[in-house]
């Protein structure tokens, strides 16, 4: 079996194994890390594999989170319905925004996606009748799946999230190793060459954009269930920036790297802030350090050591 698949399985199995031994709080942090990992991996498809740096990825995350939250609280829709609605909402948003964004590349793409992300943020604030504005949507119940274990407890919810992450990771892995994924890599390396070779570059980029949006939405849906609460803060610029940094920290173009980067950042944020008020400064310094000394991120550092 491919060593990456083995590695991924080991990580998942390891997480599944230690979970019962963890006290409640670290377990909830680990759950948060899983959701962040999914967001980071979805962005990796766009950034790492297609070479499109998006500063607005939180938009699809947020759209799905809000869809789930609103349907679950106001209309008491069940898990399947909420999840489907969330994914569809994310897909539609990505499809719309992709039409505008894919026209650009590089820095322009960065800035356009930033603007589009801000539009969603603005909507979250202003469309008060739908999103309750600044107050946020609270009271989102955990899914009722008819299982003997209630998802209100941290451990069952952790396994639930882990399972979904595993499935998503598998799907994304299949995607990036397929011929579609390889063409994405080709586009990242040189768009003109791919065009000359006859590939429909626009379509490839657009599809990558939408797929990345859908998986980002998946993370968003889980986030709504995890916190029981969604607010405009979840779609703000800082969230998109953090996603980008998770990918950069972990190593773009590896899927596993961004997942690791996400875990590192979640734990850094929550542990460092307990010991010092200057956690933001430390975080910034860590980012700069990683970018300077480990440009391939954690995954890059690991790969180099293996060599």
């Amino acid at each position, binding site marked *: 079996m491919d060593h990456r698949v083995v590695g991924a399985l080991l990580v998942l199995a390891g997480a599944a194994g230690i979970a019962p031994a963890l006290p409640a709080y670290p377990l909830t942090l680990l759950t948060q890390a899983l959701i962040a990992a999914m967001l980071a991996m979805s962005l990796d498809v766009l950034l790492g594999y297609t070479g499109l740096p998006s500063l607005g990825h939180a938009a699809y995350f947020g759209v799905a989170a809000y869809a789930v939250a609103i349907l679950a609280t106001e209309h008491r829709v069940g898990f399947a319905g909420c999840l489907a609605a969330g994914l569809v909402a994310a897909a539609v948003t990505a499809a719309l925004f992709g039409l505008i964004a894919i026209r650009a590349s590089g820095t322009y793409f960065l800035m356009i996606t930033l603007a589009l992300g801000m539009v969603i943020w603005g909507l979250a604030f202003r469309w008060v009748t739908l999103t309750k504005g600044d107050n946020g949507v609270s009271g989102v119940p955990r899914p009722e799946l008819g299982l003997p274990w209630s998802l209100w407890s941290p451990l069952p919810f952790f396994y639930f999230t882990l399972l979904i992450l595993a499935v998503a990771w598998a799907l994304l892995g299949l995607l990036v190793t397929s011929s579609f994924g390889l063409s994405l890599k080709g586009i990242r390396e040189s768009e003109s060459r791919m065009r000359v070779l006859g590939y429909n570059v626009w379509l490839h980029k657009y599809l990558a954009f939408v797929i990345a949006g859908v998986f980002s939405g998946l993370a968003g849906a889980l986030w709504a269930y995890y916190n029981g609460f969604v607010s405009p803060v979840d779609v703000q610029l800082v969230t998109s920036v953090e996603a980008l940094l998770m990918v950069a920290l972990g190593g773009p173009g590896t899927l596993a790297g961004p997942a690791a980067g996400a875990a590192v950042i979640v734990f850094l944020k929550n542990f460092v*802030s307990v010991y010092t008020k200057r956690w933001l400064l430390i975080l910034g310094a860590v980012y700069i350090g990683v970018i300077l000394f480990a440009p391939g991120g954690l995954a890059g550092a690991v790969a180099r050591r293996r060599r």
Partner: protein
Amino acid sequence: MRLMVRTRVLIASLLLAAFLAPTAASAQGAPIKIGLLAPLSGAFSATGKDMLVGAELYLDEIGRQVAGRKIELIVEDSEGTPATALTKARKLVDQDKVHVLTGGLLASTGYALQPYVDGQRIPTTFPVIAADDLTQRKPAKWIVRTGWTTSQPLHPFGEWVAKNLKYKKIATIGMDYAFGWETVGGFQHSFEESGGQIIQKIWTPLNTNDFAPFLAQIKRDADAVLALFVGRLALQFMKQYETAGLKGKLPLLAGGTTTDESVLPQMGDEAIGAITPLHYSAAIDTPQNKRFASAFEAKAGKSASYYSEATYTGTRWIVDAIKAVGGKVEDRDALLAALRKVEIKDAPRGPISVDQWGNPVQNVYVRKVEKVGGKLQNAVIATFPNTGQFWKYSPEEYMKAPLYSRDYPPCKHC
């Protein structure tokens, strides 16, 4: 013989020690843990610091112990976002095993924490969070508010303005979120019932820093303006209100936070004359407030504000409840019941008790910004004692009507 006596004494003292040991263990026993959530980084960090110092001031005054047990204050940074507040609340409850949770600043934090707190059955107090509905239509079982509801001061103020200042037509300009809607709504409710008219409602988006486009729209035929701003927006609004030429022309009324002592010192003379209602002012002329205000200023190097009084008195509230249960904070139901029964007669803000929905009944002060001894202060010009969240209204009728929002009460005279 002596040996036998010594042995008997030894045995007796051993028995005594064994008997006393359990009580000794709980007396020097595990400390009582209070978890405080405050924004210590980010845009609201100054407020968070006020909240922290207020709590610490009170705990230091009582030597950080009650009912023979030490008190441990565990502080976590909510970073001013509800998701982080929730995560840190989980840490405080699951990992640090706090007995009581307190703090929080934003309404969104309050709404985010409510289901969690009720699910965890952890006694919680909100010293600052003022979102009206948390103690109205859907009150949380495990939360006791020791602060205020947003509209609480505005109800008596609306009537007072109509009767005493004799303003008939008022234009409002406030931040476009629940805190602003509930402030204006509360005012409009009583003001219009007393014969006044709200002739214009302007809502400013939360990230506004240039108020010029809004100030230009204020109807110049109004008798006065009611504003609601917080923090740095209050600072900018006051300045721009003056440069827009409105200061002399349209008297300014505002929600209390607009001239709160956390921003008042940074304002200039443009703030003089503003009249605001709130349940606190650093200028309240009672011995207990003077003592608190000077102690706080000595400790923090800045003026006491309603945020710091909130946690100072809020911490005292918790400690009084702990005293009432004899220090047995492990009995959560008893502690919660005690929290709902605390009454303080001599807080810096005056007397406080709590209504059946868990919100304080207290004095509301009308304050006017005046320059005294070269410094700006909120001088108290009127007091409404015993004001609850529903004021004179019947709670049942009040709660049948919708929550104050952007469009409620409707602006009939706009």
